[in-house]
């Protein structure tokens, strides 16, 4: 409270001080008969010179920032397309830096040089077609080059990945990432969000997961049966809002369960295998050096964005839609640490689309391993980390449909 008072008092005193200064200024300007509409020669010249001074501040400031921080604060690109990206970025930067210096210099130099001088009249120069043609055409040509080069890189980056790309899915939710490797068949198993249960956080689709989802929705802790019995229990006294909420919850679950039954009808158990061999991985994403990857992205709740600054890669993850991005990491974490001379350095996957309070913490460390190390890591993962061993159908007393807080801790334990 004390500080608040001090702030207010300081503001009031400051106001009074300026008011007094103004009085003084007014008195003095009355004596010297200056007029607010006629800018005096002194003011004009002073401000003209300050324009030059400001130009120096702007340019030197820019050069200092460049030297101190550079334009690749995130370091050398660590992916194949990233090299092309950086080349293009540098080229564009050189173009715009030249334009920045040139036009700002003209602006401030003119502002200085052509300040009013007694007896010098302005030059009446309303238009000139030739000049205007020049500065329409020159930017147009430069832009054409920028567009052509840009689109070439864009087409390469967004093209289909080749056959030898490994499929990896990144699953995003508030506020973490889960990776799913396609396993030996390099096919990612199908999924449907309605199959989400504690034991099946990624909602993969197999005969057993469908059964579990149905069981949990019907007779889990918050299942349809429980809700119905609560609603029909005369001894339970509920506030009307609570009851209304329960009724709504029930009707939602009844709609979902119908869809789940339809799903079971249509399900072909032959595809179960493609899901069971998928390898699920939290916390750290391991990638193999010089191996092309085809990433697909999913979101459970809101939009997130998978941003890999060091690989110059980014793609939004959108609920209800599967998005994709491909890249080939080409510098292992170890060599990057050596290059950067920073033994603690790591690549990272950050969330780059506002997604709620802890958005700024939503990240996953990325480790790029040389082929040998990667293979042995993968081999050790295939058994215990596969969906087949993670997923334990819970038939008797299914857990509540979804309870993310506990889901995390219980499901992670066996994985890592």
């Amino acid at each position, binding site marked *: 409270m004390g500080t608040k008072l001090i702030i207010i008092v300081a503001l009031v005193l400051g106001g009074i001080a300026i008011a007094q200064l103004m009085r003084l200024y007014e008195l003095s300007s009355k004596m010297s008969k200056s007029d607010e509409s006629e800018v005096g020669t002194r003011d004009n010249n002073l*401000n003209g010179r300050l324009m030059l001074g400001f130009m120096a501040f702007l340019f030197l400031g820019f050069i200092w920032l460049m030297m101190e921080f550079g334009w690749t604060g995130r370091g050398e690109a660590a992916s194949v397309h990233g090299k092309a990206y950086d080349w293009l970025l540098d080229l564009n930067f050189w173009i715009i830096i030249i334009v920045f210096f040139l036009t700002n210099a003209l602006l401030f130099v003119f502002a200085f040089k052509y300040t009013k001088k007694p007896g010098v009249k302005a030059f009446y120069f309303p*238009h000139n077609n030739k000049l205007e043609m020049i500065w329409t055409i020159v930017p147009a040509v430069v832009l054409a080059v920028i567009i052509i080069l840009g689109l070439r890189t864009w087409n390469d980056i967004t093209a289909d990945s080749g056959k030898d790309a490994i499929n990896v899915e990144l699953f995003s939710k508030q506020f973490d990432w889960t990776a799913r490797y396609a396993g030996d068949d390099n096919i990612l198993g199908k999924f*449907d969000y309605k199959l989400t249960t504690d034991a099946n956080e990624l909602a993969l689709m197999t005969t057993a997961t469908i059964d579990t989802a149905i069981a949990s929705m019907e007779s889990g802790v918050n299942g349809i049966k429980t809700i119905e019995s609560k609603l029909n229990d005369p001894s339970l006294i509920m506030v009307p809002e609570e009851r209304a909420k329960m009724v709504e919850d029930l009707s939602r679950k009844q709609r979902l369960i119908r869809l789940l039954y339809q799903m079971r009808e249509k399900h072909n158990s032959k595809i179960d295998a493609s899901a069971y061999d998928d390898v699920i991985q939290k916390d750290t994403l391991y990638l193999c050096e010089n191996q092309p990857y085809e990433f697909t992205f999913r979101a459970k*709740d809101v939009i997130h*964005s998978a941003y890999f600054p060091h690989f110059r890669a980014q793609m939004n993850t959108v609920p209800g839609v599967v998005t994709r991005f491909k890249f080939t990491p080409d510098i292992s974490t170890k060599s990057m640490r050596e290059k950067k001379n920073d033994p603690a350095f790591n690549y990272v996957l950050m969330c780059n689309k506002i997604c709620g309070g802890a958005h700024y913490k939503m990240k996953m460390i990325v480790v790029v391993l040389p082929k040998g190390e990667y293979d042995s890591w993968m081999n050790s993962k295939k058994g215990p980390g596969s969906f087949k061993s993670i997923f334990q159908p819970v038939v008797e007393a299914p857990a509540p449909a*979804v309870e993310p807080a506990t889901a995390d801790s219980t499901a992670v334990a066996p994985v890592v």
Partner: protein
Amino acid sequence: MAAVAHEAHGHHDSHGHHDDHGHHEEGFVSKYIFSQDHKMIGKQFLMTAIFMGIVAMILSILFRIQLAWPGEGSDFVSFFLGEEWAPGGVMKEDMYLGLVTIHGTIMVFFLLTGGLSGTFSNMLIPLQLGARDMASGFLNMLSYWFFLISSLIMLFSMFVESGPAMAGWTIYPPLSALPQAVSGSGTGMTLWLVSMTIFIASSLIGSLNYIVTVLNLRTKGMKMTRMPLTIWAFFVTAVLGVLSFPVLLSAALLLMMDRLAGTSFYLSDIIVGGEMLTNHGGSPLLYQHLFWFLGHPEVYIVLLPALGLSSEIISTNARKPIFGYRAMIGSILAIGFLSFIVWGHHMFVTGMNPFLGSVFVFTTLLIAIPSAVKVFNYLTTLWKGSLHLTPAMMFAIGLVSTFITGGVTGIILADSALDIAVHDTYFVVAHFHIVMGMSAVLGMFAGVYHWFPKMFGRMMNLRLGYAHFWVTLVGAYGVFFPMHFVGLAGAPRRYYDYSAYNEFDTSSLDMIMDLNIIITFFAIIAAIGQLLFLFNFFYSIFRGPKAPQNPWKSNTLEWTTPVEHIHGNWPGELPTVYRWPYDYSKPGSEVDFIPQTVPLADGEEEH
């Protein structure tokens, strides 16, 4: 001064009301509050916008403190947020997002759309065209009142228990549709949508009025090709608003339906807060298309008026015709048209079809051409001029600088390939603050300094104006220039703090933190510098020296009206226009300006 009593309302006209139509007894309420006079309405817009601008600026200082000194308690923060939202003077994560959201919303819509167009279109369209008032005074009044109500609702939304909207000023669903996802998507978001709906109504009514006035109420001789560039800019701005704001309204209404009526326009396959929703088949990308169909033209709705004002100010104070008048009009029209077919550049990494992305690259980079033409024309106007460096002129020159500096980084962002690694980083924040935020704010200041004598019949203090300009320009560059480098280090925007970097890259973290402290330092300086303006502004309204008839020796019609405001603007007949507004330093003329009302001399050619 009896008028001092009205101070508190802020809509003060410092002069007695001389009205040649004879109704002297016009009451306080109809003169200051429910006024239908375009000049008073313009001032009402200005006062409201200044207030909103101050609020948004304080919000930015609050979250800048968090960014520079994360986790350190601050008295300043706790003063404004209290224990509820900032226990121990450290703001909560949610509140950080809320502040950023409301800051962006107020700056873009309330300060620079409502404030800038509202003030100057109202003030200048009738005065510079030689009209007695807007086409419909009543609708004009309505437009202001809707604006005020929406402003109040937006402010009020910051005080609800679950906090203000927290999904960013772009309020992308599903985040903005699901109260389970973030607390601000409850009541706060509803109020945001209600406020914006009313705001859109205000903007539409205003814009239609401007368009009709420009088309129908030009005085004798005021051909379209003799209109000042200010009017051209306001006119195209109004057209853009009429075509694009309804699309935002539809986006907002669909969002409202998803929130309240259980529809699935934007929602599909979602589990949030442990609840499995049944919505299926909606598309979050639909929202983004609708939003940016407004959102990009919005950038030009903000910018064009500022460019129009600065064209007029630069020409007047350079004592030279604006170079390439017709090319300037052509550029305004081209920018206006192109701004409707570039919205996809905000969506390169949303999963939109890459080919569609290529098309948007092409259209976006096209817009750089008319923008470049404008810059070169400004430069040529200064060349061999006789510059009167009034504060307005200085701000206009500052605008040209920020328009260049912010414009060139747009070339990086418009290139879909390059956008991949800078999208949604601080590089973008730097870009749009300089090109849109700073340019428009500098343009608005230029306008206020230049037309203050016309609005209030008094002059502002020059020296304070200069001091204000230099603090603002240095502060603005000091804040937004380093942000590019934060972005190039890979720092995402809308992050509450960057301590997560500790776990993977401490050298980048050091760099980001160093820069963040520099930025916050300049932000605080720039914010304090605005006190110079506020003081000068309010002080001069009451005590500034009386304005002469035509203080800047300008050619346009507004300076032929009496200094003291009257209904109908001109006491006698409306003026007749004989020439374009830019006959400055015309060879063969004694004086260095020839007002539009002066007939062509024998044998004189129009420009």
